[in-house]
Protein backbone atom coordinates (compact mmCIF):
# COMPACT_ATOMS: atom_id res chain seq x y z
CA UNK A 1 0.00 0.00 0.00
CA UNK A 2 1.07 3.55 -0.65
CA UNK A 3 0.86 5.63 2.49
CA UNK A 4 -2.01 8.01 3.29
CA UNK A 5 -3.36 10.00 6.20
CA UNK A 6 -6.47 8.91 8.07
CA UNK A 7 -9.09 11.44 9.11
CA UNK A 8 -11.80 10.50 11.57
CA UNK A 9 -14.59 13.09 11.42
CA UNK A 10 -17.44 12.94 13.93
CA UNK A 11 -20.13 14.66 11.86
CA UNK A 12 -21.31 14.69 8.24
CA UNK A 13 -20.23 18.33 7.94
CA UNK A 14 -16.71 17.48 9.09
CA UNK A 15 -16.61 14.48 6.77
CA UNK A 16 -17.72 16.57 3.79
CA UNK A 17 -15.05 19.17 4.60
CA UNK A 18 -12.37 16.46 4.88
CA UNK A 19 -13.47 15.03 1.50
CA UNK A 20 -12.64 18.41 -0.02
CA UNK A 21 -8.92 17.76 0.40
CA UNK A 22 -6.88 16.88 -2.66
CA UNK A 23 -7.08 13.11 -3.43
CA UNK A 24 -9.25 12.39 -0.41
CA UNK A 25 -11.35 9.21 -0.49
CA UNK A 26 -14.11 7.90 1.76
CA UNK A 27 -13.41 4.84 3.90
CA UNK A 28 -16.50 2.87 4.91
CA UNK A 29 -15.82 -0.60 6.27
CA UNK A 30 -12.73 -0.99 4.11
CA UNK A 31 -13.80 -4.47 2.97
CA UNK A 32 -13.39 -3.49 -0.66
CA UNK A 33 -11.15 -0.45 -0.41
CA UNK A 34 -8.37 -1.94 1.77
CA UNK A 35 -7.82 -4.94 -0.55
CA UNK A 36 -7.79 -2.44 -3.46
CA UNK A 37 -5.19 -0.30 -1.71
CA UNK A 38 -3.08 -3.39 -1.02
CA UNK A 39 -2.96 -4.00 -4.75
CA UNK A 40 -1.96 -0.38 -5.26
CA UNK A 41 -4.98 0.13 -7.51
CA UNK A 42 -5.77 3.40 -5.70
CA UNK A 43 -3.50 5.99 -4.14
CA UNK A 44 -5.53 8.46 -2.07
CA UNK A 45 -3.59 10.96 0.00
CA UNK A 46 -6.24 10.95 2.74
CA UNK A 47 -8.82 8.40 3.80
CA UNK A 48 -11.86 9.87 5.50
CA UNK A 49 -13.16 7.19 7.85
CA UNK A 50 -16.96 7.37 8.08
CA UNK A 51 -17.54 4.69 10.69
CA UNK A 52 -17.29 7.24 13.50
CA UNK A 53 -19.97 9.58 12.11
CA UNK A 54 -22.87 8.99 14.52
CA UNK A 55 -25.48 10.54 12.18
CA UNK A 56 -24.60 7.88 9.58
CA UNK A 57 -25.20 4.93 11.91
CA UNK A 58 -28.33 3.00 12.64
CA UNK A 59 -31.73 2.05 11.28
CA UNK A 60 -35.03 3.84 11.86
CA UNK A 61 -38.47 2.81 10.68
CA UNK A 62 -41.05 5.39 9.74
CA UNK A 63 -44.29 3.69 8.70
CA UNK A 64 -43.62 1.75 5.51
CA UNK A 65 -40.19 3.26 5.03
CA UNK A 66 -36.83 2.25 6.48
CA UNK A 67 -33.92 4.67 6.79
CA UNK A 68 -30.48 3.10 7.08
CA UNK A 69 -27.47 5.27 7.88
CA UNK A 70 -24.77 5.12 5.22
CA UNK A 71 -22.17 3.76 7.65
CA UNK A 72 -24.42 1.02 9.04
CA UNK A 73 -22.81 -2.41 8.87
CA UNK A 74 -24.22 -5.41 7.03
CA UNK A 75 -24.39 -7.15 10.44
CA UNK A 76 -26.64 -4.40 11.84
CA UNK A 77 -29.00 -4.62 8.84
CA UNK A 78 -29.02 -8.42 9.13
CA UNK A 79 -30.04 -8.16 12.79
CA UNK A 80 -32.79 -5.56 12.21
CA UNK A 81 -35.61 -7.52 10.58
CA UNK A 82 -38.01 -4.61 9.79
CA UNK A 83 -37.61 -5.38 6.07
CA UNK A 84 -37.10 -9.15 6.22
CA UNK A 85 -35.86 -9.68 2.64
CA UNK A 86 -33.28 -6.92 3.08
CA UNK A 87 -32.06 -8.32 6.40
CA UNK A 88 -31.79 -11.78 4.84
CA UNK A 89 -29.74 -10.32 1.98
CA UNK A 90 -27.39 -8.58 4.42
CA UNK A 91 -27.03 -11.80 6.43
CA UNK A 92 -25.58 -13.56 3.37
CA UNK A 93 -23.03 -10.97 2.25
CA UNK A 94 -19.54 -12.45 2.45
CA UNK A 95 -18.83 -13.88 5.89
CA UNK A 96 -19.37 -12.72 9.50
CA UNK A 97 -16.13 -10.71 9.70
CA UNK A 98 -16.93 -8.89 6.43
CA UNK A 99 -20.45 -8.17 7.71
CA UNK A 100 -19.08 -6.72 10.96
CA UNK A 101 -17.10 -4.07 9.03
CA UNK A 102 -18.67 -3.58 5.59
CA UNK A 103 -21.30 -0.85 5.22
CA UNK A 104 -24.32 -0.25 3.00
CA UNK A 105 -22.94 3.10 1.84
CA UNK A 106 -19.66 1.48 0.81
CA UNK A 107 -21.42 -1.26 -1.10
CA UNK A 108 -23.67 1.16 -3.01
CA UNK A 109 -20.82 3.59 -3.71
CA UNK A 110 -18.69 0.79 -5.08
CA UNK A 111 -21.51 -0.69 -7.23
CA UNK A 112 -19.67 -3.93 -7.91
CA UNK A 113 -21.50 -5.71 -10.76
CA UNK A 114 -21.90 -8.79 -8.52
CA UNK A 115 -22.77 -7.02 -5.26
CA UNK A 116 -26.00 -7.71 -3.39
CA UNK A 117 -27.22 -4.33 -2.04
CA UNK A 118 -27.51 -2.68 -5.48
CA UNK A 119 -30.18 -5.28 -6.39
CA UNK A 120 -32.12 -4.51 -3.21
CA UNK A 121 -31.92 -0.74 -3.71
CA UNK A 122 -33.00 -0.92 -7.34
CA UNK A 123 -35.82 -3.46 -6.83
CA UNK A 124 -37.14 -1.57 -3.80
CA UNK A 125 -37.02 1.79 -5.55
CA UNK A 126 -34.82 3.09 -2.72
CA UNK A 127 -33.58 6.66 -2.39
CA UNK A 128 -29.85 7.25 -1.98
CA UNK A 129 -29.37 10.20 0.39
CA UNK A 130 -26.07 12.06 0.15
CA UNK A 131 -24.60 15.06 1.91
CA UNK A 132 -25.90 17.27 -0.92
CA UNK A 133 -29.05 15.65 -2.44
CA UNK A 134 -31.36 12.67 -2.82
CA UNK A 135 -31.01 10.32 -5.78
CA UNK A 136 -33.63 7.78 -6.90
CA UNK A 137 -32.15 4.29 -7.35
CA UNK A 138 -33.38 4.33 -10.97
CA UNK A 139 -31.04 7.26 -11.65
CA UNK A 140 -28.23 6.20 -9.34
CA UNK A 141 -26.79 3.01 -10.91
CA UNK A 142 -25.01 3.87 -14.15
CA UNK A 143 -23.16 0.69 -15.11
CA UNK A 144 -20.40 -1.47 -13.68
CA UNK A 145 -18.72 0.42 -10.80
CA UNK A 146 -20.40 3.61 -12.09
CA UNK A 147 -22.84 5.67 -10.04
CA UNK A 148 -24.39 9.13 -10.04
CA UNK A 149 -22.14 10.19 -7.14
CA UNK A 150 -20.00 13.25 -7.73
CA UNK A 151 -16.40 13.47 -6.64
CA UNK A 152 -16.29 13.75 -2.84
CA UNK A 153 -20.02 13.08 -2.39
CA UNK A 154 -20.91 10.92 0.63
CA UNK A 155 -23.84 8.50 0.97
CA UNK A 156 -25.22 9.49 4.35
CA UNK A 157 -28.33 7.26 4.32
CA UNK A 158 -30.49 5.02 2.18
CA UNK A 159 -34.31 5.07 2.36
CA UNK A 160 -36.15 1.87 1.45
CA UNK A 161 -39.93 1.69 0.92
CA UNK A 162 -40.92 -1.64 2.52
CA UNK A 163 -42.75 -3.80 -0.06
CA UNK A 164 -45.76 -6.04 0.55
CA UNK A 165 -43.60 -9.05 -0.27
CA UNK A 166 -40.00 -9.44 -1.38
CA UNK A 167 -37.13 -11.90 -1.64
CA UNK A 168 -33.51 -11.95 -2.80
CA UNK A 169 -32.33 -15.16 -4.39
CA UNK A 170 -28.55 -15.41 -4.75
CA UNK A 171 -26.64 -18.06 -6.65
CA UNK A 172 -23.35 -17.86 -4.79
CA UNK A 173 -20.05 -17.82 -6.60
CA UNK A 174 -18.37 -20.14 -4.12
CA UNK A 175 -14.86 -18.66 -4.19
CA UNK A 176 -15.75 -14.99 -3.74
CA UNK A 177 -19.15 -15.47 -2.06
CA UNK A 178 -20.51 -12.64 -4.22
CA UNK A 179 -23.48 -13.33 -6.48
CA UNK A 180 -22.83 -15.29 -9.67
CA UNK A 181 -26.38 -14.14 -10.35
CA UNK A 182 -28.72 -12.61 -7.79
CA UNK A 183 -32.31 -11.48 -8.29
CA UNK A 184 -34.29 -9.26 -5.95
CA UNK A 185 -38.08 -9.26 -6.43
CA UNK A 186 -40.24 -6.67 -4.64
CA UNK A 187 -44.05 -6.54 -4.83
CA UNK A 188 -45.71 -3.19 -4.11
CA UNK A 189 -49.38 -2.17 -4.28
CA UNK A 190 -48.73 -0.53 -7.66
CA UNK A 191 -46.63 -3.28 -9.25
CA UNK A 192 -43.62 -5.57 -9.04
CA UNK A 193 -39.98 -4.57 -9.48
CA UNK A 194 -37.25 -7.06 -10.40
CA UNK A 195 -33.53 -6.23 -10.19
CA UNK A 196 -30.73 -8.47 -11.40
CA UNK A 197 -27.11 -8.39 -10.19
CA UNK A 198 -24.06 -10.45 -11.18
CA UNK A 199 -25.27 -11.01 -14.72
CA UNK A 200 -24.65 -7.99 -16.90
CA UNK A 201 -21.66 -6.07 -18.19
CA UNK A 202 -23.87 -3.03 -17.54
CA UNK A 203 -24.08 -3.86 -13.83
CA UNK A 204 -27.29 -4.08 -11.84
CA UNK A 205 -30.46 -3.61 -13.95
CA UNK A 206 -34.20 -4.15 -13.95
CA UNK A 207 -35.90 -6.90 -15.93
CA UNK A 208 -38.89 -5.11 -17.46
CA UNK A 209 -40.63 -8.16 -19.05
CA UNK A 210 -40.61 -10.04 -15.76
CA UNK A 211 -41.94 -6.97 -13.95
CA UNK A 212 -44.88 -6.72 -16.35
CA UNK A 213 -45.67 -10.44 -16.13
CA UNK A 214 -45.38 -10.53 -12.34
CA UNK A 215 -47.42 -7.35 -11.87
CA UNK A 216 -50.27 -9.13 -13.69
CA UNK A 217 -49.79 -12.47 -11.90
CA UNK A 218 -47.40 -12.73 -8.94
CA UNK A 219 -46.51 -16.40 -9.30
CA UNK A 220 -43.35 -18.19 -10.43
CA UNK A 221 -45.29 -19.60 -13.42
CA UNK A 222 -45.97 -16.09 -14.75
CA UNK A 223 -42.43 -15.88 -16.18
CA UNK A 224 -42.47 -19.35 -17.79
CA UNK A 225 -42.90 -17.92 -21.28
CA UNK A 226 -40.11 -15.34 -20.97
CA UNK A 227 -36.54 -15.78 -22.08
CA UNK A 228 -33.42 -13.80 -21.20
CA UNK A 229 -30.99 -12.81 -23.90
CA UNK A 230 -27.31 -13.63 -23.29
CA UNK A 231 -26.26 -10.47 -25.17
CA UNK A 232 -23.90 -8.36 -23.11
CA UNK A 233 -24.05 -10.69 -20.11
CA UNK A 234 -20.88 -11.43 -18.15
CA UNK A 235 -18.91 -14.48 -19.27
CA UNK A 236 -16.00 -15.68 -17.16
CA UNK A 237 -14.51 -18.92 -15.89
CA UNK A 238 -17.36 -19.26 -13.40
CA UNK A 239 -20.11 -19.23 -16.01
CA UNK A 240 -20.84 -18.39 -19.64
CA UNK A 241 -23.23 -15.64 -20.70
CA UNK A 242 -25.83 -18.27 -21.68
CA UNK A 243 -25.52 -19.91 -18.26
CA UNK A 244 -26.05 -16.57 -16.53
CA UNK A 245 -29.06 -15.84 -18.76
CA UNK A 246 -30.55 -19.16 -17.67
CA UNK A 247 -29.82 -18.39 -14.01
CA UNK A 248 -31.56 -15.00 -14.19
CA UNK A 249 -34.85 -16.71 -14.98
CA UNK A 250 -34.39 -19.54 -12.49
CA UNK A 251 -33.40 -17.16 -9.67
CA UNK A 252 -36.37 -14.89 -10.48
CA UNK A 253 -38.79 -17.81 -10.26
CA UNK A 254 -37.31 -18.93 -6.96
CA UNK A 255 -37.40 -15.40 -5.57
CA UNK A 256 -41.11 -15.10 -6.43
CA UNK A 257 -41.89 -18.48 -4.82
CA UNK A 258 -40.01 -17.51 -1.67
CA UNK A 259 -41.27 -13.91 -1.44
CA UNK A 260 -42.98 -13.04 1.81
Amino acid at each position, binding site marked *: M*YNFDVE*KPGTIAEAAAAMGADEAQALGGGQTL*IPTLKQRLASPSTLV*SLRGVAEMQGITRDGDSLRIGGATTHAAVAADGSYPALSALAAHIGDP*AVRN*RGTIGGSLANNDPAACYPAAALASGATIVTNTREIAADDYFQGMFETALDEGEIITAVRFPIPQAAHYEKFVQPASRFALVGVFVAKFADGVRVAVTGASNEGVHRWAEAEAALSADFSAGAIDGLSVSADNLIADLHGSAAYRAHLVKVMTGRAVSAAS
Partner: protein
Amino acid sequence: MTKVTMTVNGKAVSGDVEGRTLLSSFLREDQGLTGTHVGCDTSQCGACVVHVDGAAVKACTMLAAEADGAEVNTIEGQANADGSLNVIQQAFQDHHGLQCGFCTPGMVMSAAALLKDNPKPSEQEVRDYLEGNICRCTGYHNIVKAIMAASGQDVPAMAAE
Protein backbone atom coordinates in the same frame (compact mmCIF):
# COMPACT_ATOMS: atom_id res chain seq x y z
CA MET B 1 2.94 8.87 12.16
CA THR B 2 0.07 9.06 14.61
CA LYS B 3 -0.17 7.60 18.04
CA VAL B 4 -2.79 4.94 18.70
CA THR B 5 -3.85 3.55 22.05
CA MET B 6 -5.95 0.45 22.50
CA THR B 7 -6.59 -2.36 24.93
CA VAL B 8 -5.14 -5.63 23.68
CA ASN B 9 -6.08 -8.74 25.66
CA GLY B 10 -6.93 -6.57 28.64
CA LYS B 11 -3.70 -4.58 28.59
CA ALA B 12 -3.44 -0.93 27.53
CA VAL B 13 -0.94 -0.57 24.68
CA SER B 14 0.06 2.27 22.42
CA GLY B 15 2.32 2.83 19.46
CA ASP B 16 3.07 5.09 16.52
CA VAL B 17 1.53 4.00 13.24
CA GLU B 18 1.36 5.18 9.66
CA GLY B 19 -2.04 5.71 8.07
CA ARG B 20 -1.57 2.50 6.09
CA THR B 21 -0.55 0.33 9.05
CA LEU B 22 -2.95 -2.60 9.23
CA LEU B 23 -4.24 -3.79 12.58
CA SER B 24 -2.61 -7.17 11.78
CA SER B 25 0.77 -5.47 11.26
CA PHE B 26 0.40 -3.47 14.46
CA LEU B 27 -0.38 -6.61 16.46
CA ARG B 28 2.34 -8.75 14.90
CA GLU B 29 5.16 -6.30 14.35
CA ASP B 30 4.65 -3.64 17.03
CA GLN B 31 3.19 -5.77 19.76
CA GLY B 32 4.98 -9.04 18.91
CA LEU B 33 1.65 -10.88 18.97
CA THR B 34 2.38 -13.20 16.06
CA GLY B 35 -0.48 -15.57 16.85
CA THR B 36 -2.68 -13.50 14.51
CA HIS B 37 -1.71 -15.06 11.19
CA VAL B 38 -1.74 -13.44 7.77
CA GLY B 39 -2.57 -16.02 5.14
CA CYS B 40 -3.66 -13.97 2.15
CA ASP B 41 -3.59 -10.48 0.80
CA THR B 42 -7.16 -10.52 -0.37
CA SER B 43 -9.32 -10.50 2.81
CA GLN B 44 -10.48 -14.03 2.12
CA CYS B 45 -8.76 -16.56 4.38
CA GLY B 46 -9.73 -15.48 7.91
CA ALA B 47 -6.42 -16.55 9.51
CA CYS B 48 -6.18 -13.02 10.92
CA VAL B 49 -9.57 -12.88 12.69
CA VAL B 50 -9.48 -10.99 15.99
CA HIS B 51 -12.22 -9.38 18.06
CA VAL B 52 -12.57 -5.59 18.03
CA ASP B 53 -15.06 -4.32 20.61
CA GLY B 54 -16.46 -7.85 20.74
CA ALA B 55 -16.98 -8.35 17.00
CA ALA B 56 -14.98 -10.75 14.81
CA VAL B 57 -13.08 -8.82 12.15
CA LYS B 58 -10.25 -9.51 9.73
CA ALA B 59 -7.26 -7.71 11.25
CA CYS B 60 -5.66 -7.54 7.79
CA THR B 61 -8.64 -5.52 6.51
CA MET B 62 -8.80 -2.84 9.16
CA LEU B 63 -6.39 0.02 9.78
CA ALA B 64 -4.62 0.25 13.11
CA ALA B 65 -5.76 3.89 13.22
CA GLU B 66 -9.37 2.69 13.12
CA ALA B 67 -8.78 0.56 16.22
CA ASP B 68 -7.65 3.57 18.24
CA GLY B 69 -9.51 3.43 21.56
CA ALA B 70 -10.90 -0.04 20.88
CA GLU B 71 -10.79 -3.21 22.87
CA VAL B 72 -8.96 -5.87 20.87
CA ASN B 73 -8.74 -9.56 21.70
CA THR B 74 -6.38 -11.96 19.95
CA ILE B 75 -5.58 -15.65 20.18
CA GLU B 76 -2.91 -14.85 22.78
CA GLY B 77 -5.64 -13.76 25.20
CA GLN B 78 -7.75 -16.89 24.84
CA ALA B 79 -6.12 -19.28 27.34
CA ASN B 80 -7.50 -19.57 30.87
CA ALA B 81 -5.95 -17.43 33.60
CA ASP B 82 -3.75 -20.34 34.73
CA GLY B 83 -2.36 -20.76 31.22
CA SER B 84 -4.32 -23.90 30.38
CA LEU B 85 -6.19 -24.11 27.08
CA ASN B 86 -9.72 -22.70 27.14
CA VAL B 87 -12.71 -24.84 26.25
CA ILE B 88 -12.54 -24.11 22.52
CA GLN B 89 -8.77 -24.58 22.28
CA GLN B 90 -8.96 -27.83 24.26
CA ALA B 91 -11.74 -29.09 21.99
CA PHE B 92 -9.59 -28.39 18.91
CA GLN B 93 -6.84 -30.51 20.49
CA ASP B 94 -9.20 -33.29 21.58
CA HIS B 95 -10.93 -33.53 18.19
CA HIS B 96 -7.84 -33.08 16.06
CA GLY B 97 -9.23 -29.80 14.72
CA LEU B 98 -5.87 -28.73 13.33
CA GLN B 99 -3.09 -30.17 11.26
CA CYS B 100 -0.53 -27.52 10.28
CA GLY B 101 -2.25 -25.06 12.59
CA PHE B 102 -1.93 -22.04 10.34
CA CYS B 103 -5.67 -21.34 10.18
CA THR B 104 -6.27 -22.23 13.83
CA PRO B 105 -5.98 -18.79 15.47
CA GLY B 106 -8.64 -17.43 13.12
CA MET B 107 -10.79 -20.55 13.54
CA VAL B 108 -10.66 -20.29 17.34
CA MET B 109 -11.44 -16.56 17.29
CA SER B 110 -14.36 -17.08 14.89
CA ALA B 111 -15.63 -19.96 17.01
CA ALA B 112 -15.44 -17.80 20.14
CA ALA B 113 -17.45 -15.05 18.42
CA LEU B 114 -20.06 -17.57 17.26
CA LEU B 115 -20.49 -19.21 20.65
CA LYS B 116 -20.81 -15.85 22.38
CA ASP B 117 -23.86 -15.00 20.21
CA ASN B 118 -25.17 -18.51 19.73
CA PRO B 119 -24.08 -20.86 22.56
CA LYS B 120 -25.70 -23.98 21.03
CA PRO B 121 -25.31 -23.68 17.26
CA SER B 122 -26.44 -26.41 14.89
CA GLU B 123 -23.83 -28.08 12.72
CA GLN B 124 -25.07 -26.02 9.76
CA GLU B 125 -24.78 -22.78 11.73
CA VAL B 126 -21.17 -23.64 12.60
CA ARG B 127 -20.39 -24.31 8.93
CA ASP B 128 -22.10 -21.09 7.82
CA TYR B 129 -20.25 -19.04 10.41
CA LEU B 130 -16.89 -20.39 9.24
CA GLU B 131 -17.54 -19.35 5.65
CA GLY B 132 -14.73 -16.79 5.83
CA ASN B 133 -12.19 -19.10 7.48
CA ILE B 134 -10.24 -21.22 5.05
CA CYS B 135 -8.35 -24.37 6.05
CA ARG B 136 -6.15 -26.19 3.56
CA CYS B 137 -5.52 -29.23 5.76
CA THR B 138 -8.36 -30.63 7.78
CA GLY B 139 -11.30 -30.69 5.40
CA TYR B 140 -13.24 -28.86 8.13
CA HIS B 141 -15.01 -31.87 9.67
CA ASN B 142 -12.82 -31.98 12.77
CA ILE B 143 -13.02 -28.22 13.19
CA VAL B 144 -16.82 -28.42 13.17
CA LYS B 145 -16.68 -31.33 15.61
CA ALA B 146 -14.41 -29.36 17.93
CA ILE B 147 -16.76 -26.38 17.96
CA MET B 148 -19.81 -28.56 18.55
CA ALA B 149 -17.96 -30.22 21.43
CA ALA B 150 -16.86 -26.86 22.84
CA SER B 151 -20.52 -25.82 22.93
CA GLY B 152 -21.27 -28.85 25.10
CA GLN B 153 -23.22 -30.66 22.39
CA ASP B 154 -22.87 -34.15 21.00
CA VAL B 155 -20.30 -34.30 18.27
CA PRO B 156 -22.23 -35.03 15.07
CA ALA B 157 -21.53 -38.02 12.92
CA MET B 158 -20.23 -36.40 9.76
CA ALA B 159 -21.77 -37.20 6.43
CA ALA B 160 -18.39 -37.97 4.88
CA GLU B 161 -17.60 -40.68 7.41
